[in-house]
């Protein structure tokens, strides 16, 4: 089993490292979200992508529940 003594995953550090990038991304998302006109031919593809994202969110939430369950939270 690999040891992590010299390669710890520092999640907090990663979050800080990318914090500024996320802030800029937020700005872009907000301005982009104002364009709600979707061509009809793209609607189906968009619906499919939204379904994929919803399934990813569902999986992510289940992982959180699994962690909490084993820790007795």
């Amino acid at each position, binding site marked *: 089993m690999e040891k992590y003594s010299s390669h710890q*995953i520092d999640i907090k550090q990663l979050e800080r490292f990318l914090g500024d990038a996320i802030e800029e991304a937020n700005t872009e998302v907000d301005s982009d979200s104002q364009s709600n006109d979707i061509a009809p031919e793209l609607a189906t593809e968009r619906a499919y992508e939204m379904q994929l994202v919803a399934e990813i969110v569902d999986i992510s939430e289940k992982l959180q529940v699994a962690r909490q369950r084993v820790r007795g939270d």
Partner: protein
Amino acid sequence: MARYSILKSLGKLASLPGKRPLSQLSERELIQRESEIGRQIFGPIKKGHRREFFNTSPKVWIWHEEWLDSAGKRHQLTTKYEIRDHDIWKVQPGPRYTKLSGDELTNFKRAVEVYFERVMREIYDTEHNV
């Protein structure tokens, strides 16, 4: 029933030498265990490379890659996948941000599925079909 449960628990401990029970691990340690699986699902890792792929919250997935170039210099790239409303944004240093779509989104979804199936089966001992 109780005896079966004890034997089952002993079997788990025997298959995980040197590992503490899951209930004693912090959330971060659980995520580290998950990443041991996450790093495997994209194929072999070259010598000198290090890869991590893990989920930190219902809205965030992280990909981290480190490697040595021919001069022995270490490089690293961290990509954060942030779920925002009905989209997933890929955020990289720079900053660069890209909304996942098309094949990239499909492939990411598949990677998340494989991660979930293996993590639930190999760590949390639960069968889940997505």
